[in-house]
């Protein structure tokens, strides 16, 4: 491996392992008036935060790198893990660098977590971001435009700097470029997964949660070029799509385990918030209108969002076809309502299309992967040996 690539990977790994958000603190330290706004996984309009001169920071839980001491006292045993580690990080001062926190409408857990935040940290800016479930421009669109205007006002108050239309357009362009670069990496991975192993790609994309988007775009581009220049040989692995991972993130060890068990991940729903919009947001005209329209027309499909036409699972079948995958791994966090309630519908869609699948659950701090390795290995063998998919 080239020194540059090794250094890049070392850097993104360090960013991933750092649950103290040092990169955010360092960014803030460079200017007295710099502020950062955190957000839970899935979609928030980061362009608005960026245009207001603040750093959007994705808060994806503490993973397996954080011992939960106080967080468990706030949640019953039957609730998923991400709110525990997020509360733990907040109570231990790790999120002090964040001047505000956004909770998008992922599920009832994240929604109620926004209320817990209000109760625990009454002096901090907190907002629940209720994305529309109605996709008519005059109805859901009108609602979303007003929510975006409200957010923009809030951010102006928080940063002391009102974003004008030009600043918003610039931020839209910055994030368009970031999404395009991530999209290009996913595309390249789909063609040559052995060049961009999921365990590397994940860290590279994830770094965008704590870095300024301009810097992250460069980092993704560098990784794609550096990895392509490596002499990595094609491997005889099964091509799989991984779903269910859009909120609480699997431990890195789990991604490595899937690869070691013979699975090449060619598509996934990891880190969806960074890839939510599937097309560019218009860089001309009214930027709020552009963001609202992009949400209505170019949102990816996921369990947390209503799909008026039905056809749950059509996107998954399409992803399998597009990426020439041989099977699907349902990999959902324990007690994740959206992923687990969605799963039977997706299974039906796969069954109708004759696509093999397997399923298991994890928590962000799962440390034992033997059973998963065995199951994924068996799945990989079975689809290579017996499937005609």
């Amino acid at each position: 491996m080239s020194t540059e690539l090794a250094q890049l990977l070392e850097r993104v790994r360090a960013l991933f392992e750092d649950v103290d958000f040092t990169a955010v603190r360092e960014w803030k330290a460079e200017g007295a008036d710099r502020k950062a706004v955190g957000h839970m996984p899935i979609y928030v309009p980061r362009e608005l935060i960026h245009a207001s001169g603040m750093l959007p920071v994705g808060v994806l839980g503490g993973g397996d790198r954080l011992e939960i001491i106080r967080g468990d006292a706030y949640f019953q045993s039957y609730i998923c893990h991400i709110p525990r580690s997020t509360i733990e990080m907040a109570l231990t001062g790790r999120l002090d660098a964040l001047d505000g926190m956004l909770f998008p409408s992922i599920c009832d857990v994240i929604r109620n977590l926004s209320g817990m935040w209000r109760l625990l940290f009454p002096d901090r800016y907190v907002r629940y971001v209720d994305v529309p479930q109605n996709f008519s421009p005059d109805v859901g669109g009108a609602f979303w435009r007003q929510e975006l205007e409200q957010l923009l006002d809030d951010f102006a108050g928080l940063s002391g700097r009102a974003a004008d239309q030009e600043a918003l357009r610039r931020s839209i362009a910055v994030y368009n470029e970031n999404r395009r670069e991530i999209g290009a990496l996913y595309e390249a991975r789909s063609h040559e997964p052995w060049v961009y192993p999921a365990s590397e790609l994940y860290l590279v994309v994830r770094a965008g949660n704590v870095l300024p988007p301009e810097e992250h775009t460069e980092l993704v581009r560098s990784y794609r070029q550096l990895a392509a220049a490596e002499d990595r040989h094609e491997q005889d692995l099964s091509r799989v799509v991984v779903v269910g991972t859009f909120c609480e993130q699997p431990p890195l060890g789990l991604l490595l385990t899937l690869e070691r068990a013979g699975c090449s991940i060619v598509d996934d729903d990891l880190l969806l918030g960074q890839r939510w919009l599937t097309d560019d947001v218009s860089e001309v005209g009214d930027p709020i209108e552009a963001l609202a329209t992009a949400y209505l027309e170019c949102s990816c499909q996921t369990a947390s969002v209503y799909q008026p036409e039905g056809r749950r699972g059509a996107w998954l079948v399409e992803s399998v076809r597009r990426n020439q995958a041989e099977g699907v791994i349902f990999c959902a966090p324990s007690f994740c309502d959206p992923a687990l309630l969605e799963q039977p519908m997706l299974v039906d869609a796969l069954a109708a299309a004759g696509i093999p699948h397997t399923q298991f659950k994890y928590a962000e701090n799962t440390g034992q992967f033997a059973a998963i390795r065995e199951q994924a290995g068996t799945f990989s063998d079975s689809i290579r040996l017996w499937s005609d998919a």
Partner: protein
Amino acid sequence: MSPETGAPPREIPKERSMLLQKEMIAGHYQDLASAPETGRKVVYTFVPGNLTELMRSFDVLPVLPEINALQSGMRKLSGDYISEAEKQGHSEDVCTYVKCDIGMLKQGNVGPTGQPLPEPDLLLLSYTGCFTFMKWFELLRQEYDCPVAMLHVPYQADGTIHDHHRAYVVEQLESEIIPKLEQVTGQQFDEDRLRAELELSAVAEDDLVWVLESAKNVPSPIDAYFGGVYYIGPMFTAFRGTQEGVDYYRTLRAEIEERLAAGRGPITPDGELEEERYRLVLEGPPNWTSFRDFWRMFSEEGAVVVASSYTKVGGLYDRGFRHDPSRPLETLADYCMGCYTNLGLPSRVDLIADYIREYRADGFMINSVKSCNSFSVGQLLMLRQLEERTGVPGGFIESDLVDPRYFSAANIKNRIESYLQMLEQKRGTAA
């Protein structure tokens, strides 16, 4: 023999309102069972944020899957239904109301009266206060060949109904819900009829509030949780906006007035409570699979629930909301947004703290149910906040809605008894 305790059954005289409610429910299920013959259209929808008056104005019959699930729980059928759904691939981790409903559907969709429920002509998905509702009807959509009307009700994270939130709901009613009801029924929307129904709702709501607030008296003539779930039945389900609903609440109120005047306590599974020893506020839904046993764990100790949050999932009438016929769609929007589980945690804490003071409660208890993240997430923080704010001690128990595997009677009884002993001890110390 009592199916729950094995004890010989004891005849508890039924009050007029109980018989009336029984007749109303039986009539409703009869109407549903005969819908295929009568041609009446059937709409499946949810309790929180239900649009009963609007549906009634189109002559459709509502089916509420949560009510079917809790009825299945009370009739000891939910365990089998849940197993059926899990066999079909539904996770053990998710809402048991959903699995109970899916299991019931797979086993013939026989309703609580033993008659099959008709298939829906419309799935009216009121997405109010519960994310799972959305997935639930997406799952049902796969089973039925019928349209879905989605009403997204914005969450009241800061406890305020903003103008653009109200406008959003009204616009959805106008552009999505009403057109779909018109399409399914072939009837035109009749605003005057809706207004007339809303007027009846407000009359019944006045009486319901009077009944619930009668628990401010010491001793209380009602149990506002175990009894309360019966009192809210007609209001939260199919009878808002009807003369039957008005008559029921008038009858109920007269009975409670009589009970109050006579200084009589609430009715329990074992007859009238003779001595009110503890006044409690309760947060969270009840367990339905062992409902009477659960109730007895309180009533046998003389513990009366004087206010509860669960009886507000279908509307916070006691905080002043009334359906307002002068602004028919706006009032429906406000109703949907104001349901208890659509409120942010700070509002929920405020409400319960107010209840503790207003109802002069000795304590409060949280029944945390595994199935319902909408209720349960944050309850441990609520417990601390309420104790700090009111100085009143809280208790915490865990069970489930309709999964019998998650009702551990001995543990729950033990916790309740210990909690009440602690209250007693505290009382002794204070004296």
